[in-house]
Structure formats: C-alpha cells, structure tokens
C-alpha cells in the first residue's frame, strides 16, 4: 500500500513553531517614527519648514549610504527594515537646522558608513550610528555647529535670533528664575529641531516605552541620575540651571527617549538598562556643566556605548536555580 504523498509544503524547522506576530524589527522602527510624530509637529510649529529640510536630507543620505554599503558587500539591501531611516530622522533632528547641506550629508554618510556598516550592519554596531555621524561633523565643523550656529541674527523667525537655553545656562552669572520654565517645556526656544519641546518628547517617549520598543529602564535611569547630579551641582552653585531645567533643555529628553534607547547599542538586561541610563545621565550633566561643550548627551551616549559590553558582562543575571556548580 503506497503511502499517499504529503502536501508539497511540509517543512522541517526548529521549535518553537509559533512567533509573536507583532514582534518584528521593522515594527520597532516604525514605532520610533510614530513616537517621533509629536516631536516633528512641534518642530514644524516652532521652526517652520526648516525643521523638515535638514531631516529629509539626512534620511535620504542615510538610505543611500545603507544601500551602497550593502550592495558593496553583496548583501540584500535592507531599506525595508527602516533602521537607516530612523538613524536619518534622529540625526537630522539633532543637527542645527541651519547647518550647511554638506554637514547633514557627511554626517549621514559617516553615521551609516563608519557607525554601522564597518561593524557589519544592522544589529552589530557598537556605537549609536547617528551619534557617530553627529560627533564626526561636530568635531570637524566646530564653527558651523557650535553655539553660534543656532543663532541667526536677522531671521524673521524670532526664535532663531535668541541663543539656545544651554548657551545661556553656560554663561549666566546668576541662577535662572522659574518664570522661564514654560517655554522650555513646550519648546518655544532655539535649539536643534528635535529637542526643543519637552512635552512632545515625553509623549513620544512614553509611547515607545509602553510599546516596549524602548527599554524603560534607560530613560528612567537617565532622568533620575541626571536630576540628582544636576541638583548637586546646582546646590553647589556650579550651574545656573535648576535640575528640572537641565532635564527639559538641550537634548536631554531627546537623548533619554530616542537616542540612548537604541536597542542595538544599549545593554540587553534590565539591570544593565538602568546602569547604562544612569551613566548617560551623569555624564551628560557633567560634560554639560564642566566641559567646553554646551551639550553632553552625544558624548555621554558614545562613552556609555563603549561601556555596554562591560555592563552586559557585569549584569549577567543569576539564573533561576543559581549557577551550575563547576564539576
């Protein structure tokens, strides 16, 4: 009796045979873009079309670089996972809108090329690609990206004629009063387009955490440690900004929710998330207050990225039932 043939599609595969349908890399990236929407809306409200221009350029350049790098290595071109697009968005929103075009373009090429492709592409990079790109141009074109780059004296957009809050903090001779908190919170100040509106960042960031596309331990650790650190420095009279101001100015919130949370370049274990966030928070504030640069988030993220392998090592959890005794 010959056995009837099996249906043609029968396949052999390792268990498990089910997978959580909503859990894909691409979905995580789309979540970031969704979370970015309020930020983008505020950016457009504050900076008008300037906000979008820089970002669009960065996204295009990032996608192009990603395609070229993958093509050169003979890999499939993975633009569909949107990770390069996310890098472009974050990079574009963290550069001053007025930076010349070649800065955005170079930053994008460096971000994807040096920040990502040389390590093997998506998932392998050690450092946050967008921050690698940003640091590269920041150190290259200090003049075009320094404090003065944000100020356009004769702009018809009034906000652009003012110095950024961080410049003011750095140079203030007296503590800054409470009356100016509201514009900082809403975002009616000068700065990089992505970072000005604390409220939009909070909304987007919470969405990311709730969706579990970002590990909540990172922003939690960062906000907590940043607050404590800023409080100590404020109490010692070393900074003009009260702690809460530090948290809502500059790229602190942007960093806490969108940059430090890049899963690839942050630890994998919850305790590690918290440690990592704490490190970024403390370093950001220290660099902000003590170094020659007005903002420290970018450097802090890169520094802590370098420490991630060590953090992952130190935070290996004790398995249920304890470690297997060496035999």
């Amino acid at each position, binding site marked *: 009796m010959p056995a009837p043939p099996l*249906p043609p599609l029968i396949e052999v595969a390792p268990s498990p045979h089910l*997978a959580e349908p909503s859990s894909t890399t691409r*979905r995580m990236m789309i979540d970031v873009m969704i979370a970015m929407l309020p930020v983008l809306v505020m950016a457009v409200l504050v900076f008008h079309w300037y906000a979008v221009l820089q970002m669009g350029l960065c996204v295009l350049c990032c996608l192009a670089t990603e395609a070229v790098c993958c093509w050169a290595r003979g890999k499939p071109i993975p633009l569909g996972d949107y990770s390069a697009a996310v890098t472009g968005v974050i990079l574009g929103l963290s550069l001053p809108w007025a930076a010349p075009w070649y800065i955005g373009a170079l930053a994008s090429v460096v971000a994807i090329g040096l920040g990502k492709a040389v390590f093997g592409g998506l998932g392998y990079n050690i450092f946050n690609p967008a921050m690698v790109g940003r640091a590269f141009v920041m150190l290259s074109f200090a003049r075009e990206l320094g404090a003065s780059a944000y100020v356009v004296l004769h702009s018809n957009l009034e906000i652009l004629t003012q110095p950024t809050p961080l410049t003011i903090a750095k140079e203030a001779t007296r503590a800054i009063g409470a009356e100016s908190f509201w514009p900082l919170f809403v975002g009616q100040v000068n700065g990089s387009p992505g970072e000005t509106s604390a409220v939009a960042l909070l909304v987007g960031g919470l969405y990311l955490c709730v969706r579990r596309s970002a590990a909540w331990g990172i922003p939690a650790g960062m906000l907590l440690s940043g607050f404590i650190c800023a409080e100590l420095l404020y109490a010692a009279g070393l900074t003009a900004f009260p702690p809460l101001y530090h948290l809502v100015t500059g790229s602190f919130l942007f960093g806490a929710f969108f940059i430090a949370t890049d899963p690839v370049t942050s630890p994998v274990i919850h305790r590690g998330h918290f440690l990592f966030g704490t490190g970024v928070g403390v370093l950001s504030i220290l660099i902000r207050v003590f170094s020659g640069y007005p903002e420290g988030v970018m450097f802090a993220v890169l520094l802590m990225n370098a420490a991630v392998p060590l953090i992952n090592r130190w935070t290996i959890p004790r398995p249920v039932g304890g470690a297997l005794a060496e035999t």
Partner: protein
Amino acid sequence: MSVFSPVVHRTFARGVHPPERKGLAENCPIEVLPCPSKVVIPLLQHLGAVCLATVKPRQEVEMGDVVGEATAPVSAPVHASVRGKVGRATMATLPNGRHVPAIPIDAAEEQPFAGDALFEEIYGGDYPLDGLGHYLPQTIRQAAREAGLVGLGGAAFPTHIKLAPREQTPIDTLLLNGCECEPYLTGDDQLMQVAPRPILAGGLLGQLATGAQRVVVGIEANKPRAIRSLRQAAEGTDIEICVLRPKYPQGGEKQLIAAMLHREIPNGKLPLDVGVVVLNVGTAAALARAVVRGRPLTHRVVTVSGGGIRRPANVLAPIGASYRQLVEHCGGLRDNAVRIIAGGPMMGFTLGTLDAPVTKGTSGITILSEREVRRAGETPCVRCGRCVEVCPMRLVPTKLGLAARAGNAELARRHHIAACVECGCCAYVCPAQLPLVQLIRVGKVLARK
C-alpha cells in the same frame, strides 16, 4: 482575562502568552482509534537504556505482553499494545530524529477490546480513593516498573525511579501536573474531565510511594471543566487543587514548582532535591491502573490538532500506531498544512514524514497550516532584550545564541547555557526571528566539551 477575574492566581515569573488555540480540540471527547492493522513498538520510548526484545518473529502476543525488557535500572519495559503476530525486528525513527530498534506487530482481526470497551479498559474501573492505604511503597514501585510506566508529560522519564525514596532529601510534596500549557494540546484536559478518579488515585499512590505529606494538582485557570471535575472527585480526600494563571511554560516542572511552592530547583539538580515529585496527570492515571489493576502502559491519549488537520480530535491510541493512522482518522491533512509536529508547537519537533510511531511520550500531533506559522526570514539580532525579559530561567538567550554561532564555549558557559530548558519563549518573542533554541542546542554541546 485574569486581570478582571476576582482571584489572582499564582504563576511563575516571566514566560509568554502564546495564542492558546485550544478551542480546536477542547470540546472533542476522547475517541478511540480503531485498531490499526499494524503497530511498530520502539524499544526505546523513554529516557534511559534501550530495551532488549523478548519476542521472536511470528510469535503470537496478547495485548499487554512484554515485548522488550528493561536491562538497566534507568529503563522501562515495553508491551504489546494490540493482540497479534510479531514481525521481523526493524528500525523506527522517533520524532526527535533518533533511529531505534522496534518490534512490529501485525494486529489480529479479533482484538480483546475495541471502541468504548477499550476506553473502559484503560480509564474505567473503580478506584477507591480511601481504600488505597494498604499498598506498600515497594509494591507500587514494582507495579510501576513492570507496567513500563514512564512520564507521559513529554520527558518520558521512568516513573519508578522518580518514586524511589531518597534518604537525604525526604519528599514532602507530590505535584500532579495538569497545566498542559502548550497551545493546541487538550488531551490532559479531556482526561481530567472524564477520568478524575484514576488521576487522583495515582496521586495518592504516588504519595504512598514517596512518603509525601501533600498531593497537589496544578491546573491552569483556562480549564474550568477539568477543575470542576477534579474538585468533585477530590472531595473527601486531602488532595488539593491549585489553580494557576495560564502562562507558558507553566507545565515545565521548574516553573510549576516555582509557581505552586515558590521553590527554586538548583541548576543541575532535580525536583527530588527540593523535596518534590512531579507527575503528569496522565502518568498518575496510568500508575493507578498499573497498581490497582496490574495493567501495563499500552495506550495513551494523543491530541491531533492544528489548522492543518481536517477534524481535530483527542484520540486514545495504542503505542506504536503510526502518525499516519491518527492523521487519517482525523480526516487527513489539509492542503495548506506546512508542519507536522510531534508534541505542541512550542517545544515539539517537526517531522518530514507521517511514518513515525506514537510513543509513550507523544502528547499530541500538531499540524500547523501556512497561516499559523510565521516564517519571516531571520534578521540580525538587534539586542532588544525581549528574549531576556521572557526567559523563565532568567538567562540571556541572545548571548547564548551569539556564543553558539561564534563557537565561543566560554561565553556560553559564562551565561549558564546548561540551565536552559529549551522552552522556546525567547525565540517566540524574538523580533529578529533568530532560531535561538536551535542555536542553544548547538551551544550546549559546545559548552560541555
């Protein structure tokens, strides 16, 4: 659902909630497979040593006759599951890919039991829950051993070894595992509904054999009928019924013990070492049958379910019946069937054929259709940590996978690869679709060197 229910049931930490899809076979009462014309009885159906064949070709055997005897302490005899004539010894391929010697038996026309009578023979009979006290521990173990009893929950570990007393660590609790947390599988659920008394009797006998003070049945809240039936049957006995919040892999003994007793089994140790013995409910029923009625393990309930089968069902099948017979009994495969799985979809092995025999450890056959499996291509790990969040053993699966890929045994050991129970939670949630369990299996071999 449990969020709104008034009682917050116990459960273990982490784990996942895969779609249960139990509805397919949940309401199908156990049906009896018509006696197949031929069964192939593997001589190794358990964890341990291969049995030695005790029958010769052309020999006539009765249902229940020994066809292979245990030659080592950790082993269990196998019995003929039908009446018939022994054929020439062959090799059978078990679902896990192992080739083992097997005894084929051509079933006789006339079988001693068929249909309801067979069901009655296997799960019927009277089990006086208050009249078991006279069985001696040795008697119980001896009966379990002779009946070829092994765990029916999947691991197929010889039961008499589990019931052996231990001097250093006295057993205080006997757990009956009625979780059946794997999606699709409903065999234990049905069994608890229709045969609560053998199950409870098995529990009491296990208690006698191990000297445990308590017998507790662990059962997930998504099986209300089974809970009701067990509660009723347990009235008047000391057996406790503990309802658990459904979550995968609750049925894993480490998780079950954590959920019910808040005890952690040290890695590399057994439940015995924390004073617990865990028996699957089916095993308990078979134990009662072996002790009280002296019958060997010849049949078991197999769930045949999934979107790729025409008529999902819970089938009482003789050991050695081929998958093909069960599938055909259930209407055959649908055209969109893509995976034939021995066991449930989370831990089961896929088969490339239907010519495998049902063994003592076969809890189900899951046939998945195109729609049910997601076969998105694998992408690189994005270190999102989701696998870490769900691992019930609190491991770091992504590192285990990486270590295996890179052949880095030291890294694998540093991350306690040996503690992995291969439950598949990590791979289930992984957005990159990494075959983590497969990698971990490779890594375990690597790390042992």
